[in-house]
């Protein structure tokens, strides 16, 4: 087995070993987007990926405590590249992808945001 395959296998194992700390999430990924200057409408095409994520560090970021920020750690191989267009859903709530803290070929760590 290649080293990258070995690492991916162990990342999957790690996500399983942390049990309920890794939760099932749905990632809606925009694969294309276009803007129509005539109608002022943005058209996007999305695909949905089901995967596991470790969600940590819930903090409230605005002065009036209406914005919640969390950190999501995901398996890069499962999700591919993500952008600010993408939406992460879990526990019946939707979160917008914020800045990517770190993204390697194995693990992606991103800030996610939602209004309370």
């Amino acid at each position, binding site marked *: 087995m290649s080293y990258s395959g070995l690492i991916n296998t162990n990342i999957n194992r790690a996500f399983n070993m942390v049990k309920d700390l890794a939760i099932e999430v749905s990632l809606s990924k*925009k*694969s*294309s*987007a276009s*803007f*129509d*200057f*005539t109608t*002022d409408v*943005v058209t996007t095409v999305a695909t949905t990926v089901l995967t596991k994520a470790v969600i940590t560090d819930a903090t409230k970021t605005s002065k009036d405590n209406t914005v919640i920020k969390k950190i999501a750690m995901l398996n890069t191989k499962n999700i591919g590249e993500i*952008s*600010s*267009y993408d939406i992460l859903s879990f526990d019946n709530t939707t979160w917008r992808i914020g800045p990517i803290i770190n993204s390697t070929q194995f693990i992606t760590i991103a800030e996610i945001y939602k209004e309370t």
Partner: protein
Amino acid sequence: MGKYENLEKDVFSIFASTLWKNENIKTFPVNFIELNPGNEFIRASVIPSGNGINLTSISGVLIIDIFTSAGNGPRKTSLIADKLDSYLVGKSISTQSGNATQLQNSSLAILGLDKDNPALFRASYSIPFNYFGV
């Protein structure tokens, strides 16, 4: 419609035109994320930050960021700016009856490598405007 929406429609009508589309310069508005913008594109921001001559008028500046490949010299930037000039400088645009957006003369500021993507060279094309409503 209000003056801000009318103003935006006037300016965007240029980029919606078939003539501009045939120039094959990828054009995006501010607050839009293009997933695959490539190495050559422009991004338009309408900034209605000045006073108007009456309550239905306003002035401001149209700022267009020009992105080209880094390391290839400034010529492409100049060519795109000249192309923008031919569509904008001195033009009067009206998409609504009785309203008009008048564009003045342009200027170009070279900003160097883009801080988010150093593979891109960035310049800022700006042109003041006056919008007159009814």
